[in-house]
């Protein structure tokens, strides 16, 4: 089976359990099981070739220019891990079917499990380190979902968060390390990297890369000082603990260290970092495990300890030690998964995991007792079980290890760790199963059905068989995998129970005897242990998180204190600083362009705009006056556009000006008419300095720009040349809008439509709140006109309506060849309608407005989109335009272009957006029955002497 399929199967299959849960829990678990089985079979088909020493590859270039390729390869190490992941996965699926209760959402569980499985398989099969990183992060995410599976338990949620925080940040560090590694080698392909040992180890970046990658591995594999998340992750359901925290996820870090072993190992940095960390973790985990009363916590710390053991073996950097590490990975996966499952059975049957409440279960649960005993003895390193074989190999290796000149330190500490390891393993048997039968179990314990004991039973069978016949059972597999770790050369694997009287045997005997002695005094030691003050990892972690939260809170508050003017000032200062930096470091070419001559009219316009702008600021407290002055500015700007050869802009500006002023007037109707003096003189001086600097900067920049030619050839010529031949129009600006850059325009009308809908939504929200009552009862602060709808204006606007619409149509149709087009025509049409609102009143106009403006916006965007899609039917990209010339008697020959249809969409969107915005505002003012609704109504209540109230209480 292709490696792609093996890696993809769990992901593809993840939907089935979630769907099939409707058909029952059996169907769901069968679906998960068959997917896993299929992937496992696919893997095993490849196994013989891999054992023969072949490497199977599957390559797919994904983003080659980033070095990110979906390449997979399967060698011995990959085969071993993928086999563990899929094989144990299958057992876990079986076990979980009977472990989870009826209330637990099982479909979800299997979906998460398969996602996790896929991510793990992806890690071990990746031949590209970037791809590997993607899978690596996926395991963190999917394990988060699995650990927090019991959402109702706070421990579950906290444990999941802690696991994600620790492994996730380690993953971030690893990304950095992997990128450095890829940079050193010049390739992100693992097979290439693995052949460049000298290059990598001689690089000055070797140490940073090593530390970053190891951070990822240590966090994932719960190595000291990152070990604390693993026990908290035990809040997960036991199948998850058995799967993630014994056999698979925590081994991902080990896998990566093994994978990178050929290029990273062998240096003293590697030895001291990896071996020391492993040794400390092994000892620390074993000591803590002995004093844990929770079954799963005991197993969790024992896992930490064994992971440390394997890390230490990899850290030794010798080929024999690496081979032993691989062997122990297999053994640990078998006995530890079985142990977790028995812990789960005990919990399931007695409803407690507290060792102090247990004991004497051997009579009640003989089968569980047998399984647990075999697995525990293997963990303790007692012959003839498989744990003994790899522990012997480990002890043997420590004897040859010199740490900082000391020959005895490593073996002594290893024996001590093995001693504690034996003690907690015996405790698992002694305090749970031996001793007198109690009468006070929370439930009535008995052996479970085969669904629960089959999986651990199968695993302990392997424990025994591997222990008795290691070379037949797993010899070839471990040898191939071990040689894949070692990289070059061939190392033979051979294991046997009896080696003769070697130092390792004596060390084993010390550990076993000492372990029994330690267990005898466990109760007394535990009292001392509990009394002693120890740093509690969870408290430290929580305090750290709280400190980080506080720091970011402080930082955010310091920057964002709610004073918007302050943000604006910071923004201006920062922009000025950037510009100042650019100005002081850049160079400027000499002016190349002649200045245009100045005639009288521009001077007049200039005086108008300068005066009006200055007056806007000077008189901005009088808001109405400021608006009038704004109108002058807008008019001069549009005249300026016209003068400077931009007729389209002039038309657009002048029509936008009208609607903007109407909009602001409408808003001003509800707001205070004056702005009070609030800011201090010092602040005003600051603002003047800022704004004058900004003005000088911008003015100077554009002046400098205008005096010089383009530094690069302009693309204007392209548009000018192709406008008529390619776009069929002589108004180049319009052709750019509807054709060359039609996609931009499409986006812009969409944005405009969204803005209008936002305004509408805000209006709806305001008018359905308490504000509505206030609006209805508001007291006008200025005198109101007695005739809200002056007769002359009503008549004039009604006469003008068709004329204005005709102008809009004219502007629209000529737009392709002469100044005009959809934008301008839309604005003119909108103005024609606004005039009716202003003259005849909102009520009158709204009554006659039968098409909702949303619909007009929508149809506009739709027309533009459909026009654009029309190009697809001719096999052309979106928005490619077509045009032709038509001659119908007695008309002149005229042009038909799809661009005109697109422009129609623009027209509709603009009309709809402008009208929706203004109508929304107008709805604030509308007071049915109070302001005359009908045109030509005269309000006889008008009082010339003072402000008129329009409220009902007036």
């Amino acid at each position, binding site marked *: 089976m292709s490696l792609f399929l093996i890696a993809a199967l769990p992901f593809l299959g993840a939907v089935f359990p979630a769907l099939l849960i409707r058909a029952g829990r059996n169907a769901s678990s069968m679906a998960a099981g068959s997917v896993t089985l299929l992937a496992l079979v696919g893997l095993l088909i490849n196994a013989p070739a891999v054992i023969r020493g072949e490497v199977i590859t599957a390559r797919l270039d994904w983003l080659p220019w980033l070095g990110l390729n979906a390449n997979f390869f399967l060698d011995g190490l990959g085969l071993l891990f993928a086999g563990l992941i899929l094989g144990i996965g299958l057992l876990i699926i079986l076990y979980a079917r009977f472990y989870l209760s009826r209330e637990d959402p099982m479909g979800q569980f299997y979906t998460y499990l398969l996602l996790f499985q896929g991510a793990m398989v992806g890690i071990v099969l990746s031949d590209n380190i970037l791809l590997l990183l993607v899978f690596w992060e996926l395991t963190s995410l999917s394990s988060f979902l699995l650990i927090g599976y019991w959402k109702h338990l706070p421990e579950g949620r906290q444990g999941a968060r802690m696991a994600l925080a620790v492994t996730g940040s380690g993953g971030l560090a690893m990304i950095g390390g992997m990128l450095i590694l890829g940079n050193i080698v010049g390739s992100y392909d693992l097979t290439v990297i693995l052949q460049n040992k000298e290059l990598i180890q001689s690089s000055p970046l070797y140490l940073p890369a090593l530390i970053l990658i190891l951070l990822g591995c240590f966090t994932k594999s719960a190595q000291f000082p990152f070990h604390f998340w693993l026990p908290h992750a035990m809040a997960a359901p036991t199948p998850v603990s058995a799967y993630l925290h014994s056999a698979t996820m925590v081994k991902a870090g080990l896998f990566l260290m093994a994978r990178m072993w050929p290029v990273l190992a062998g240096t003293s940095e590697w030895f001291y970092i990896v071996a020391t960390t492993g040794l400390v973790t092994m000892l620390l985990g074993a000591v803590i495990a002995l004093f844990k009363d929770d079954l799963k916590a005991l197993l969790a710390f024992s896992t930490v300890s064994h992971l440390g053991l394997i890390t230490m073996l990899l850290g030794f950097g010798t080929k024999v030690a690496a081979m032993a590490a691989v062997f122990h990975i297999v053994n640990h996966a078998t006995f530890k998964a079985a142990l977790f499952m028995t812990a789960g059975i005990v919990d399931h049957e007695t409803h407690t995991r507290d060792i102090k409440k247990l004991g004497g279960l051997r009579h009640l649960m003989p089968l569980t007792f047998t399984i647990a005993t075999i697995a525990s003895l293997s963990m303790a390193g007692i012959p003839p079980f498989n744990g003994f074989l790899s522990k012997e190999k480990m002890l043997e290796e420590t004897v040859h290890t010199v740490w900082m000149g000391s020959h005895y330190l490593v073996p002594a500490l290893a024996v001590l760790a093995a001693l504690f390891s034996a003690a907690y393993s015996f405790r698992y048997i002694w305090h749970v199963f031996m001793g007198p039968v109690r009468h006070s179990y929370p439930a009535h314990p008995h052996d479970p059905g085969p669904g629960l004991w089959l999986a651990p039973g199968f695993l302990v069978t392997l424990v025994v068989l591997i222990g008795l016949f290691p070379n037949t059972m797993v010899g070839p597999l471990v040898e191939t995998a071990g040689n894949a770790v070692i990289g070059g050369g061939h190392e033979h694997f051979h294991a046997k129970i009896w080696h003769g009287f070697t130092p390792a045997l004596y060390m084993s005997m010390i550990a076993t005897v000492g372990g029994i002695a330690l267990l005898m005094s466990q109760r007394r030691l535990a009292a001392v242990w509990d009394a002693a003050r120890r740093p509690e990892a969870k408290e430290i972690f929580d305090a750290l998180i709280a400190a980080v939260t506080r720091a970011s809170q402080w930082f955010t508050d310091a920057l964002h204190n709610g004073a918007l*003017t302050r943000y604006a000032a910071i923004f201006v200062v920062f922009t000025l600083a950037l510009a100042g930096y650019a100005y002081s470091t850049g160079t400027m070419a000499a002016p190349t362009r002649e200045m245009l001559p100045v005639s009288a009219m521009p001077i007049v316009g200039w005086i108008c705009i300068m005066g009006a702008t200055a007056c806007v600021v000077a008189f901005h407290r009088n808001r109405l006056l400021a608006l009038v002055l704004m109108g002058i500015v807008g008019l001069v700007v549009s005249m300026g556009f016209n003068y400077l050869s931009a007729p389209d802009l002039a038309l657009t500006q002048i029509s936008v000006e009208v609607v903007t002023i109407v909009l602001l007037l409408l808003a001003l109707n509800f707001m205070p008419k004056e702005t009070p003096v609030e800011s201090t003189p010092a602040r005003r001086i600051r603002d003047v300095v800022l704004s004058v600097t900004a003005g000088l900067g911008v003015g100077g920049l554009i002046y400098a720009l205008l005096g010089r030619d383009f530094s690069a050839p302009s693309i204007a010529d392209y548009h000018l040349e192709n406008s008529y031949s390619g776009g069929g129009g002589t108004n180049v600006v319009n052709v750019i809008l509807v054709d060359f850059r039609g996609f*931009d325009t499409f986006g812009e009308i969409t944005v405009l439509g969204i*803005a209008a809908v936002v305004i509408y939504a805000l209006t709806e929200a305001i008018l359905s709140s308490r504000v509505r009552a206030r609006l209805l009862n508001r007291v006008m602060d200025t005198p109101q006109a007695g005739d809200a709808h002056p007769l002359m204006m009503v008549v004039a606007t009604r006469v003008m309506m068709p004329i204005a619409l005709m102008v809009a149509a004219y502007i629209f149709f000529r737009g392709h060849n002469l100044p005009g087009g959809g934008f301008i025509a839309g604005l003119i049409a909108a103005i024609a309608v606004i005039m009716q609102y202003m003259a005849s009143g909102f009520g009158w106009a709204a009554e006659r407005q039968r098409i909702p403006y949303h619909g007009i916006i929508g149809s506009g965007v739709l027309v533009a989109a459909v026009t654009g899609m029309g190009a697809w039917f001719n096999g052309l990209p979106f928005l490619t335009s077509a045009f032709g010339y038509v001659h119908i008697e007695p008309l002149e020959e005229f042009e038909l272009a799809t661009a005109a249809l697109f422009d129609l969409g623009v027209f509709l969107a603009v009309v709809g957006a402008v009208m929706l915005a203004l109508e*929304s505002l107008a709805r604030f003012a509308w007071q049915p029955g109070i302001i005359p609704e009908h045109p030509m109504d005269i309000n006889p209540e008008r009082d010339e002497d003072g402000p008129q109230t329009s409220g009902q209480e007036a």
Partner: protein
Amino acid sequence: MEILVSSAVGLLTACGVYLILRLRTFPVILGLSLLSYAVNVFLFATGRLALNAPPILNKYKEVAYTDPLPQALVLTAIVISFGMTAVIVMIALSSYLTAKDDRIDMTDEAGEDA
């Protein structure tokens, strides 16, 4: 001519920035409008200034054309700035009607920062 355009853009920017730094919503809206003018004219002017050279193709004789691209960009920018102005006007109005206050700073001690 160039000096007239540049000085106008400069003054529009200066006045726009000054008004944006005010404490009430309405002047800020005015300031944003002034800045929109400044930005639109600035963008338009990056195509360099030209007299009597509109980018309308003349089929009958060879004439000079000014750069059409900034014009197309500015045309949509003008319409979009209307949309933007409308949205902030609406937000300002809503907040004024809801809070009965048109200050823009949300600090409790607004006077202190003023």
